[in-house]
């Protein structure tokens, strides 16, 4: 990466197909611009798909045709993706914990959900949520190796 000043903003309308495309576009762009390797770009795509699927499923409760924005900012040593929607806020106004220290031996109570946030937390170096002007703003950041 060569310059601090390359930003991109994507605008789409909510649908599972559109968010899958968006996750791909953004991860390809980050792969090109931030020179991350293919594995990292794959995992980034997965995280974006998880966060964007949550927006369609939970924030918009499955409704299609609602606005979603993705702002991508490249800085010298990291990049950020901000996901913005106008749907329902996160429960308790914060990002679900999604910690991966559930009890492996408690067979009956193995979690059947929450893996999305575990994956996001394992990959991103910064996760910040804010409710702003009636919008959900989720900021995901990743440091780049020197």
């Amino acid at each position: 990466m060569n310059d601090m000043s390359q930003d991109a903003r994507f605008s789409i309308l909510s649908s599972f197909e559109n968010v899958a495309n968006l996750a791909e576009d953004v991860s390809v762009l980050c792969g090109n611009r931030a020179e991350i390797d293919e594995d990292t770009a794959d995992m980034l795509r997965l995280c974006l798909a998880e966060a964007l699927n949550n927006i369609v499923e939970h924030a918009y409760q499955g409704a299609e045709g609602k606005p979603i924005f993705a702002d991508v900012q490249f800085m010298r040593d990291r990049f950020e993706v901000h996901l913005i929607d106008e749907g329902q806020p996160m429960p308790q106004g914060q990002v679900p914990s999604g910690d991966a220290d559930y009890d492996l031996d408690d067979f009956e109570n193995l979690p059947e959900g929450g893996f999305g946030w575990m994956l996001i937390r394992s990959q991103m170096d910064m996760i910040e949520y804010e409710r702003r002007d009636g919008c959900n703003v989720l900021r995901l950041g990743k440091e780049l190796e020197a």
Partner: protein
Amino acid sequence: MILTVEKPRIDSQIAGVFRDEAEDYLSDNRVDCAVDLSNVRFMDSTGLSSLVSLLKFIGPDRKLELCGLTPQVTKALKLTRLDDIFVTRANVREAELAREARAAMS
């Protein structure tokens, strides 16, 4: 018996169908099962959920194993610590050998 997933992705569009079909099969046939994931290049959280559902469904008396994991699937299992819950085999052949070994022991 071996359940081979033909699709290259287990994501929100397909995870539900996959789980339902597998559960139907496993209620009709009370056998051990190895899920062959060698065609699956991409698995998301709903794919992981469907595997956990299957494991609970089959219960403690039967075996559910995974085989032929591609790198992304391996990584997704590891990051959610599900690699500690599932028995995995390199490929279908290994899964069959393991089943034969169990049969010989019992």
